[in-house]
């Protein structure tokens, strides 16, 4: 199902198809609404391509199994929603500390706790960033269409391998359940590139060697190659041995954050709609970016010079793009299905004293474009 053909399908299925296209060969998961079609599609598609599906006893073990499979060299992924994502935080931290690439899809639903299982939400923005304990960097991508679900999943695997990090695809129930035309393009050779092997002799390999500039990320060979090594969730030195000295711990934590922060250019992506001459900006992501796009189009039709900055990367937060937009407009509106998690980040970057108003919705329904349009009108008056 690759090539140029258009397929009419859901975001969930497009995520699974994107993973298969990216060469993913291992899925471990636990069923949960509204992400289960990802598991079902993976269970059907992976054996066709020589991959493997395993349904684990919970999300703790699902996350652990994909981390293990990745150490054996597989492109590995799992999918879940809020309650499961909470359980995954433990071993997401293992992937961070062990610098083990993997992709975790969180189809956000209304929380906290069981909340409303079938209703969309965007309340896990901060959990994606800080859900696992301790300082670290993380990459989070936010799709707003079924095509994004496919494309961003491919990109997620590529980023995970390149930076030896877990990547979170932060979808939402609206986008995941949405059906649209999608093109199942073939990934580029670069996107499907196998992980590089170390170019040193096995005895010289240090799995946690760090380039202070963070330009070179140490390759992670698979278990079973000539490179015998140790990965660990404990504080470690460059060899993977115990390394709890203050100087070493400081170095490791700064590396875990720095390898993401210092590579923002390669990671952060945004979309700009009508921003060139805008004096009002909507800043949005995921399903709310769809509402925002309709609102901005309608605003333009009514002569209001509004534009949209869509954050397709949520973490690291697109600081430069947001700051640039804020510096050019008279006001900004941030619609989201939570009580202001992204709006807070936008305000952090508002060095320009312009009004930033959030539109928060936490009732399990989407933000109608009219609400954003009203906010734009108010911002103008």
């Amino acid at each position: 199902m690759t090539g140029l053909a258009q397929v009419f399908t859901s975001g969930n299925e497009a995520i699974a198809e994107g993973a298969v296209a990216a060469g993913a060969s291992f899925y471990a998961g636990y069923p949960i609404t509204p992400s289960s079609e990802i598991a079902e599609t993976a269970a059907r598609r992976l054996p066709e391509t020589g991959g493997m599906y395993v349904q684990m006893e919970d999300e703790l073990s699902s996350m652990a199994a994909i981390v293990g499979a990745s150490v054996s060299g597989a492109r590995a992924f799992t999918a879940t929603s809020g309650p499961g994502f909470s359980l995954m935080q433990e071993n997401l931290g293992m992937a961070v500390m062990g610098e083990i690439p993997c992709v975790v899809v969180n189809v956000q639903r209304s929380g906290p706790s069981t909340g409303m299982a079938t209703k969309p939400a965007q309340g896990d923005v901060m959990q994606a960033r800080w859900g696992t304990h301790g300082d670290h960097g993380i990459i989070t991508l936010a799709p707003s269409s079924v095509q994004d679900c496919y494309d961003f999943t491919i990109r997620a695997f590529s980023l995970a391998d390149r930076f030896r990090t877990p990547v979170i695809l932060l979808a939402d129930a609206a986008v995941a359940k949405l059906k649209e035309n999608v093109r199942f393009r073939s990934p580029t050779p670069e996107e499907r590139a196998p992980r590089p092997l170390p170019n040193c002799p096995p005895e010289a390999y240090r799995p946690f060697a760090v380039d202070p500039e963070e330009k070179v990320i140490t390759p992670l060979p698979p278990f079973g190659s000539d490179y015998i090594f140790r990965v660990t969730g404990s504080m470690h030195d460059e060899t993977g041995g115990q390394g709890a000295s203050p100087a070493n711990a400081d170095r490791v934590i700064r590396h875990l954050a720095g390898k993401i922060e210092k590579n923002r250019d390669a990671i952060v992506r945004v979309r700009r709609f009508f921003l060139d001459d805008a004096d009002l900006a909507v800043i949005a992501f995921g399903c709310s970016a769809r509402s925002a796009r309709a609102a901005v189009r309608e605003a333009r039709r009514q002569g209001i010079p509004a534009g949209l900055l869509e954050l397709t990367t949520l973490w690291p937060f697109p600081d430069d793009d947001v700051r640039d937009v804020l510096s050019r407009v008279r006001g900004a509106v941030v619609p989201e299905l939570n009580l202001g998690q992204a709006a807070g980040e936008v305000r952090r970057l508002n060095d320009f004293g312009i009004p930033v108003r959030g539109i928060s919705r936490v009732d399990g329904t989407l933000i109608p474009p009219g609400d954003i349009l009203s906010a734009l009108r108010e911002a103008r008056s």
Partner: protein
Amino acid sequence: MTARDCREYLAENRLPTIWCPGCGNGLVLKAIAGAFADLGLDRRKTAAVSGIGCWGWADDYLAVNAFHGTHGRALAFATGIKLANPELTVVVLMGDGDGATIGGNHLIHAARRNVDLTAVVVNNYNYGMTGGQYSGTTPRGSITSTSPLGHVEDSFDLCALTAAAGAPFVARGSVCGGENLRVLIRRGLEHRGFSFVEAASVCPTHFSRRNGLRTPAEAFSWLRDHSVPRERAAGMTEEELRGKQVLGVFADHQSEDYGTRYRKAAAALRREEEPS
């Protein structure tokens, strides 16, 4: 495969171990290295997956690929490691708190799922690393740092548990049993599918000391004197067996492992889909 020297599998530059004098862990480590050597395992194709706790340090001292994961989840990491690379021999090193208490759900499902792994659970009947609190295998009546009145819960029989959950190979050895533990671990490694080997051990620092056994020697003697081979246990009453460890093999049957079954089914599917 030809037999090798067990020292080939030990990271001697990392010795001595961090374990307390009189700890049973070193004997289990030696048994594992010995079993590896008996089978002549290729170190490159061998992985040790450990959890958290005193025994979770064991992978530090093995000169094979090692994965030191989170508390209780070693079997789940190992499941991914083995399924994604079936060439690997994967041994999973857990303690009773790690593998059978916080990781109890993973243990029974691993036994049921039957991935080709060998789990070696060192059972010292308490959480040693955190100071001697009670675990899921602490015997009723025992004094621990969190059961000062005497433990009121009953304990798991890990071999009965994993055998009931479907593990095709289940055995219990003891750190007092000499070469027997090495043999049981070797048999577990040779057995295709999920193998469970419990090593009954001692924790002189925290557990036995609080229960009237003042020295490591007393702890080892107690364990030896309270161990009964399975064959002899068959003729003993429940009353006679109370407080005793029954040693031996509790399950030994063939059952095709998850990876083999899955790959066969997937290959059949792909053949069906090929145009004839």
